[in-house]
């Protein structure tokens, strides 16, 4: 099996139409000859962007967990629920599977995503050759389950739309939902801006 990367061969795959082309050497920027999209061998400024988005997400992760996600107003009074208090409520009221699901989706996954992406970005920056396969698998998993984090936001959205009985009961989205949504979006953007090929770049250089 011939082991060679496109970059080594001077080829660039268009990230839109997947056409592999050979751009003129030392061209600062060139377009795909077929679809006209911008061509680049690696996502430009990938590590820095990932870091920036990760940091933003990490900062917003705190208010997302402290501020109330859902404000329930009923004749019995007003209740403000944060992500954790919602999980705690589900747990104490006996809905353990649901509690575990919400906990995993809303708290564990974003946190793991932040940590995992940080790890990936750090190792890619250091051009580490440690467990490159696992790191790639980790990246694929992150991409896959990242969208699940929006579960809580969807729940709040649906409840806000459904429960609106005037004075009897009313549910509003709290500021926490906004911060949480921002965290999820930012981590998704971060994982998108991370170029998994960077995991292998140095290794191939070394090996090759």
């Amino acid at each position, binding site marked *: 099996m011939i082991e060679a990367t496109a970059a080594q061969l001077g080829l660039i795959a268009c990230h839109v139409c997947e056409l592999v082309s050979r751009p003129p050497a030392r061209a600062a920027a060139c377009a795909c000859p077929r679809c006209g999209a911008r061509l680049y061998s690696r996502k430009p*400024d990938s590590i*820095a*962007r990932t870091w*920036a*988005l990760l*940091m*933003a*997400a990490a*900062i*917003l992760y*705190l*208010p997302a967990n*402290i*501020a109330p996600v859902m404000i329930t107003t009923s*004749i*019995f*009074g007003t209740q403000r629920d944060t992500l954790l208090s919602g999980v705690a409520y589900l747990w104490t009221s006996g809905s353990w599977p649901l509690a575990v699901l919400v906990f995993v989706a809303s708290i564990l996954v974003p946190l793991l995503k932040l940590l995992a992406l940080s790890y990936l970005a750090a190792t890619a920056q250091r051009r580490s050759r440690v467990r490159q396969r696992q790191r790639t698998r980790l990246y694929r998993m992150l991409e896959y389950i990242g969208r699940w984090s929006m579960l809580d936001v969807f729940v709040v959205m649906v409840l806000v739309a459904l429960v609106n009985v005037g004075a009897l009961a009313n549910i509003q989205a709290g500021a926490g939902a906004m911060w949480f949504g*921002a965290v999820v979006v*930012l981590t998704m953007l971060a994982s998108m*801006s991370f170029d998994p090929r960077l995991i292998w770049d140095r290794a191939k250089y070394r090996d090759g």
Partner: protein
Amino acid sequence: MFSLVWIVPLIAALIGGWLAWKAVSEKGPTFVIRFKTAEGIEAGKTKIKYKSVDVGAVESIELSRDRGVVLVHARMEKYAEDYLVKDSRFWVVRARVTGGNVQGLGTLLSGAHIGMDVGKSADATREFTGLEEQPIVTADVPGRHFILKSKTLGSFNAGSPVYFRKIAVGEVESYGLDGDGKGVTSRIFVRAPHDQYVNRETRFWEASGIDLKLDATGVSVETESLTSILVGGIAFQTRGDGKDTEPAAEDAKFRLFRNRVTALAYRDVVVMPFTLRFRESVRGLSIGAPVDFRGIVMGEVTDIRPQYENEETYMVVFANLYPERMASRQIGEPKRLKRGFSREQVIDELIETGMRAQLRTANLITGQRYVALDSFKDAKPDTVDWKESPPRFPTVPGTFTGVAENIAQITKKLSAVPFDDIGKDLKRGLETLDRTLKSVDKLAKRVGSEIAPEVRESLVALRSALATVERTVTEDAPLQQDARAALREVARAAASLRVLVEYLEQHPEALIRGKPEEKQ
């Protein structure tokens, strides 16, 4: 070199920093409220409300070290920091139904919350003692508090209405025993602008329940309102026109009268205390009993005490006399006083003319008694020693006592009679009599045995003598016959004499001329 993407975390950092700063700066102060019980209070949930606006929330609840009270740690909103002053009050709002109103119904569903009343003090504090009951009046309601003193509580309660001309203008805020336990002090609140009607001449009375009165005009029922029948209340009114008096100050003290009549009655300014010394029992005379002058109450009994003096026990009755009642108020001051007599001199004069105090029975069934002032023409002369304090008013024994005394005197005389000696004499006399009777008996026996036969003989002789007499005087006895013939002769002679006398009466000349010949 510098990527634009770094703006994103910068913005995130700014937002995060702003949120953090906001959270820290908006975090109000924490404070502690002590409650006897944490009933209805939940950590993290129970809100603190002022005028139904959330101004804080309970953060945690713990017991005090000695387990005596519950310490409720709460956090105030930033803007409400100034509300935590010394005289701010906290209480737990629960659903409450009293006779007059229903409060806190909303808490049935939403759970209790902590109510707050912001004080007016400027001293900030972080430690409060929660009220057990919701205060009736909050500090922001304009009006004035007044303090009412009474002997007993009466039938009102905290929250009972205060009426002025049958309009509810305030509430009874609280009540409690005096420090010495000798009376009850109630605090009432009269809302503005009605508080201006309370002045020095204002009288308060218990407007509780129904005042049923039976007098010469018939039966009259008086009450303030249906609510006051149920929950009691206090009413007030100002005596006179009250125009020239200033409104009473905050926390001014008033006496609480039992009813409207006593409240609006004339209040005696001049009080003359006297002592009345009675030798008789004062049973039936109670403190507060009237001192009555021919049907008009002139004073009242304030105290009764026995006193031992000069080897004699007196019942000393302390009484207050209200000399002003002697003078008709329409006339003004008594004329005597205008002439320069003092009240003491007037009383001296009255006593000189025979005025005395006497215990009388007001009710024969219950035995209640009162002190009557009246004139006794034959009373022993007496005077008041004004140097004594209080001076002694002369008394005479009561009417009942007079009778009793007479009986006592009779008894005394009776007991002076030497019944023992009389008895002995009587006994001796009876013995003598007995002896006499015995000798009489002996005599009689002797009469029976010795004298009786002789008597019989005498009787027989007597009978024969009588028979002789009888024989002599029977009709056909010769003596009888002779006597009868003789009498007949006498009768005839008398008839002839009568004829003669009659003839002589008609013809007195016949004595001289003789009887004329009858002409035929």
